[in-house]
């Protein structure tokens, strides 16, 4: 793909949320435009990337996906490290997955950068008839906690693109702003040779960090 040759930023975004809410399908919908009806529980950790243009900048979204972790694992901190964005996913048809959002949020803030951009994502909006979490409730919760909010359907491909885009845009905003630049948040690039190749943007350097 041509775009992976040149990009201004690499943003690490993590997917979190209870098991079975559709994190992996959100990811595959966004990165591959695929949906797997009988996907299994995610084991281990993996990420996918998608490069996109935002405001004339090439941004590589590196989206990490793992199983809904139920206990602290050694991987937890590694998983969050360097993430500049997070999608906290719940299933709108399962109240419990929504109720655990708070717990996830706490874990996120325990391990990730405090300036991380977080979006609360109510997935499976196609299951309107089974809805157990009202949009307003979720929205209120998101506002209260300073989260972005969106309802999506990985199945119907509703709002998936928009959700990720919004997160990336928000991250970019933060990265671009001076305060953030000097703050702890940073865009992440992988330690590959290409990282610097297209570093025409001055802002890229200060916020790039080699892992």
């Amino acid at each position, binding site marked *: 793909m041509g775009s*992976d040759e040149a990009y201004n930023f690499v943003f690490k975004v993590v997917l979190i949320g209870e098991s079975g809410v559709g994190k992996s399908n959100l990811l595959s919908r966004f*990165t591959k435009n695929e949906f797997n009806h009988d996907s299994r529980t995610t084991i281990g*950790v*993996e*990420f*996918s990337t998608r490069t996109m243009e935002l405001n004339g900048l090439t941004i590589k979204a590196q989206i990490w996906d793992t199983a809904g972790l139920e206990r602290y*694992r050694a*991987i937890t901190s*590694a998983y969050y490290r360097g993430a500049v964005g997070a999608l906290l996913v719940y299933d709108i048809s399962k109240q419990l997955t929504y109720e655990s959002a708070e717990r996830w949020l706490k874990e996120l803030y325990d391990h990730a950068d405090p300036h991380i951009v977080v979006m609360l994502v109510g997935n499976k909006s196609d299951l309107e008839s089974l809805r157990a979490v009202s949009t307003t409730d979720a929205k209120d919760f998101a506002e209260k906690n300073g989260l972005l909010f969106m309802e999506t359907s990985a199945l119907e491909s509703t709002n998936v693109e928009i959700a990720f885009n919004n997160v990336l845009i928000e991250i970019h905003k933060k990265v671009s702003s001076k305060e953030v630049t000097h703050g702890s948040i940073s865009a992440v690039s992988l330690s590959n040779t290409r990282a610097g190749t297209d570093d025409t943007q001055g802002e890229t350097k200060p916020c790039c960090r080699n*892992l």
Partner: protein
Amino acid sequence: MSLADQSQQWYPTSVQVTVLQARNLRIKGKNGTNDAYAIIQVAKDKFSTSVAEKCIAPVWKEEATFDLPMFQSGNAERQTLYVVVMHRALVGLDKLLGQAIVNLLDLHDSKSRKRTDWYKLVDKNGKEDKERGEVLLDIQFMRNNMTASMFDLSMQDKPRSRLSKLKDKVRGKKRDGLSDSASAVVPSAVSQVLTDSEEEQEASTVSPKSKPPSKLKSLFAPKSNLHRGVSQSMSTLGTLPEKNSSLSSSRSSGLNVESPDVKRKFKFLGHKRTGSTDSKASLGPFSLLNRSKQNIAEQNNLCINGSHVYAEEEEPAASSGSMLSLSSSAKGSAEDLRKSHERNASDVSVDSFKGLSVPTYKPEPMERAPRAPQLSGEDEEKKHRKADGRLQEVMDRQEEQDRRRQQEREERLRRQQEDQEKKRQQEEEQQRRRGEEEKRKTEEQKRHEEARVTERLSSLFGLGKKKEEPHSPATEHPTHMEVVASSNPFEEIPLSSDTSPYLEGSPANPPKGAQSSFAPAPPSNAFPGRTAKVSAVKPRPHPVKPMNTAENQPNINISVVKDLKTPTIREATEKSKTTEGGPFTQLTQEELITLVVKQQAELSKKDSKILELEDYIDNLLVRVIEEKPSILLALNSKV
């Protein structure tokens, strides 16, 4: 004389507790139901009922009898009845739903009490913490009305093997089967049974002094209630002569004869029976009574296995069984009892006959029937003759003993012991029976093969049959073979002996493994209805499983118990291997618990292994993430 009166004059020597049902229980199980069972305890004796699964108002109708040594000594703990209602948890400890605590001394003193009453459940400390519901208990105090002859018998019993005693039990059960669906299988047996138990009840309620006369009376009055009962039940099924009953009962009792002692005993019993009323002498009337109640369930099972026809009648049968005991307890007098019993008996028998319905009596049984009855018939006559002399003897002794008994406490104690032993026997019986049931089920599938086996059995166990041959040599017609045949001949076969006859008897028998599929019988057996019933068998009033058998059993018994147990377990395991349906349905609770515990241990082992692996992978992942995250790029995804 009523029981109540008796208890004023005599201390009760035992108490019979029937746990009928519970209501308004707290719900601890899944789906808003409980898997409830009750533990019945007096002093150190503990019994557990079966588990009433998935219900909110469990019905057990199971009873246990406890000895009450030194009932008036004021030893409170020993005279307190605990009925602890538990929920069986699949995992972890069973949960307490509540317990009823009954001071038997107080209860005994209170003349106004109802025999059957609801008792409130309290918490484990005996406090009323919250609404826990209540349990319906039938509590009756009893004396061991043992007569001299009984005493003698008990002496005779001593040297006998445990097993043989068990067999006696079996026999007792058979007779009791009366009210039962068993009647459908062996219609004549029903009538016989009726009469027997009637007698027993009578005997039990009659005061010691009045006993001998009544006995004699009945002896010399051939047209006693007993006969009435017979005729009543017979009326519906005119074709079945009394003969049958004797045959069938003899069959049941006759099996398993092993030691000479046993034989003697059997003879004795059979003789008495012929004499008509004297069943008292053979065994403690109360124990018989109890047994009759308790055994109904098993009997039902038998019937069910033997033929699908009867399963339906379980309900009425069971209720009548309990009614019997209730009525006996409620009404002290022999007269009342007799009446009520008769009433019940006739009702039941009518019911069962109805249920029998001609079409269900298939020609199939007839074919195999013929030989066994003949054999037993001849023998029975001989037996009968021998037994006559014996009866006289017994009666004399009995009278003597009656007199003595009232003053000699020692003897009472002895009797208690005997009672205990009987109880134990019952328990063992049950265990054995379980094994037998399994066997039987498998056999159903080969019913067509049974004819041969029957023959074999009859020759094998011919002795036992002889003894039992009751009333009438005159009734000895081959007419009733079908009845005999329909009563599953395997019912009474001891575990040890039954395997071989089966194998030999039925060449068509599939390999052991296939046989043992017990739960849902394969449709191939041509009795689809029956199979359904088998699985639907409900716990019935039957002897409650002891929780501490080993504790109070003589050493001899223990070894026997083991013997009995091993085959059962072996079979069970065999089954679990071969059956798809419910590999665990035949396991006892203890076995199941062991199994669960084992599996839990295994699981937790695996869990910890999984955790270890997870940790290992996590650590690897962490290193990957830190060193070369690109490795984790999802497959197929473009960079």
